[in-house]
């Protein structure tokens, strides 16, 4: 039952960018990711979820990963395999655990990532933080 689309999907180019962690670059990568998702046939509603969740992960890198006044690397990877879109956002900075009470103006990024993706995992490490998120392109699994 899972045979027909696999060989086609594996031909779709995966996405990979490494850019400076700056707000304008995060916005550009969001657009490129959205275009890619459209090209590989991800439905519009899911595309919107991917764009927002990936952007929130990238915004966290831009705002929190590197000490104020410095900048580092922002990396985006995406691919589609067997009907599952995987998006990985990576930095080479220092994970900042969210405060217990972030106040009314902060702390919405990670909840959005969790709510919008089928599955998400934040992996902080000594060499940086990786956020991995997945979506099904069949559209039936999230709602």
């Amino acid at each position: 039952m899972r045979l027909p689309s696999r060989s086609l999907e594996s031909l779709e180019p995966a996405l990979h960018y490494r850019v400076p962690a700056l707000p304008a670059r995060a916005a550009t990568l969001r657009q490129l990711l959205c275009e890619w998702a459209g090209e590989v046939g991800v439905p519009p509603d899911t595309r919107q979820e991917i764009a927002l969740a990936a952007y929130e992960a990238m915004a966290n890198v831009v705002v929190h990963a590197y000490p104020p006044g410095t900048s580092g690397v922002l990396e985006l990877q995406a691919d589609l395999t067997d009907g599952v879109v995987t998006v990985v956002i990576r930095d080479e900075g220092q994970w900042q655990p969210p405060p217990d009470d972030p106040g009314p103006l902060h702390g919405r990024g990670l909840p959005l990532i969790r709510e919008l993706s089928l599955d998400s995992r934040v992996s902080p490490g000594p060499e940086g933080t990786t956020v991995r998120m997945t979506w099904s392109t069949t559209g039936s699994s999230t709602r």
Partner: protein
Amino acid sequence: MSVHVEQHGAAVVLRVTGELDLLTAPRLEESVDNALREQPQVLILDLSEVGFLASSGIAALVDAHQRGGKETEVRVVARGNATFRPLELTGVTAKLAVHPTLDEALSVE
């Protein structure tokens, strides 16, 4: 992202067009600052033409609501996946007055 300011009776309406994210949210905050300086009775942030709303944009809405305080009642116009859904998922619809259309936001008693 652009913001157009309109006066509707006692309400000031900020019609926002484009994307509200890390890059553009500070410009909305600036427009809100300017609008609140006149202490209107009602300030409506109309996101009908916003195609992307990130948490930084949501923070700008919450900030506007807080700064409006007792003098200015802040209302938001949002509908659909791009704007209403992020507000709903983050629980902001329970705290801010969110209306589906500008007409409805204007006709609240």
